């Protein structure tokens, strides 16, 4: 199980939960798990988010999530 | 709207072209003569990227008509190095990293050369005011000013 921290306005789709447990081993698994557990999140996740694992932005769906890692969902970062 | 025949000297070479009288010297240089080193940044005389010398005078070629060049002498960035040797200003710009994107560089080099011909030992403030009509958005001007001052020092040494 991975504990995923969400930003506040997403809690509308998670019955108010700021942190949700998802059964997944990878970033892709987390995103898919979020969608299936909380369908309201789907358009937001599809619009693009960053998954931050222990402070580092994951580089793709394949990235594995270590045991006990801190997982934070953020808007997708871009730059100039 | 008939075109006019223009004969002019560019970087020492006599050239001829046909110009629509509405066409700027900048467009004549770039589109008729293939001298694309002179750049257009604004078309209104506010950025200096199109700087050239017209009979020795520093001007914005976007504010000169092609037909006005008839019988005149024009110097552009393409003529700045002589016999394959870079002008000290050109060398110093590379050495001091005085360019990032390089788009304003030809105009600044032309303008700086005109300054050093008029004033071989300019102060930092004089360089800054002389180049106020040459916008650079990348460098904050610091390294440009240093490169011009250093080139001036080298030219003075050569002259001494």
């Amino acid at each position: 199980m991975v504990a995923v921290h969400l930003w506040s306005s997403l809690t509308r789709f998670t019955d108010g939960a700021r942190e949700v447990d998802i059964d997944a081993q990878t970033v892709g698994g987390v995103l898919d798990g979020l969608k299936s557990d909380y369908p309201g999140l789907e358009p937001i996740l599809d619009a693009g988010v960053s998954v931050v694992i222990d402070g580092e932005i994951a580089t793709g769906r394949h990235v594995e999530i270590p045991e006990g890692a801190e997982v934070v969902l953020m808007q997708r970062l871009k730059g100039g | 709207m008939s075109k006019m025949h223009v004969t002019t000297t560019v970087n020492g070479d006599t050239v001829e072209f046909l110009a629509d009288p509405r066409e700027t010297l900048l467009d004549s240089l770039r589109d008729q003569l293939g001298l694309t080193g002179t750049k257009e940044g604004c078309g209104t005389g506010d950025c200096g990227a199109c700087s050239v010398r017209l009979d020795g005078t520093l001007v914005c070629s976007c504010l000169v008509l092609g037909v006005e060049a008839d019988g005149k002498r024009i110097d552009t960035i393409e003529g700045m190095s002589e016999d394959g040797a870079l002008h000290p200003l050109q060398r110093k710009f590379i050495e001091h990293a005085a360019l990032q994107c390089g788009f304003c560089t030809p105009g600044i080099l032309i303008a700086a050369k005109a300054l050093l011909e008029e004033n071989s030992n300019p102060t930092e403030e004089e360089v800054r005011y002389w180049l106020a009509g040459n916008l650079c958005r990348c460098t904050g001007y610091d390294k440009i000013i240093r490169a011009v001052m250093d080139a001036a020092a080298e030219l003075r040494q050569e002259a001494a």
Partner: protein
Amino acid sequence: MRYHTPSTFEDAAQLAAGAQGLTRFLAGGTDVLVQMRAGSVLPDDLIDIKKIPGVSDITKTDDGGWRIGVAVPGHKLGADAALRADWPGVVEGMELVGSTQIQGRATLAGNLCNGSPAADGVPGLVAAGATVEITGPDGTRTAKVEDVPTGPFKTSLAQGEVISAILLPPRGPNGGDAYLRFIPRTEMDIAVVGCAVSLTLDGDTISDARVALGAVAPVIALAPDAAKAIVGTTLDDAALDALARAASAACKPIDDKRGTVEFRTEVAGVLAKRAAKIAYARAKGA
């Protein structure tokens, strides 16, 4: 567009008088070419007056005044030490127009004929009491510089009329002038406020003065009350304050992208004081 290069002002005037569509005279071109590029002015006939003999000359007249050719660019004006010694305020006004590159082309006459209320070259001429020689299809006349602009980008020149010279009066002894403008940056801006002061001293006392304001009204104009405030004084603090108040009171500015009514009004007074001090020092020979 037809491009003409007449060799006399008479020919230039005839060309313009006979033209059917839109006509522009081309001297330095630093306004006309910008307008053509923006598509705001698309002339049918463009009359380049730079091939007329004498247009690039600056000559001292027999009475001790100056005749400035209409194609004299700013950098050439600035390089004339004798002219600068007589009328430094006129010269420094023109030198503030644009960049080094613009100075290679832009002319006093063009700056005047463009009709901008913010023209930096003009307040100095107005304060100096300069006139222009105008050639038209029916001959030549002269006019005061301040009578040329009639509104933003409008002039009193009739169809076919072209300015053929700018005439400065003799400076005379114990005189000095100065021009200051305010801009947000240090260079390359159009004046938000401009102020020229020309004065003559009798000992330490100002015997005669003219103050001209730019960018604070539809046209560049004299501010007679501002001049009155310093005539008869030694430019002491009270006179300077009165000058500032009168200069501010003469303003009829607008809010625009370059400044506000309040700002222009306030700064007109500040610049009038500062310009008067410089002109005074110059008159003293400092």
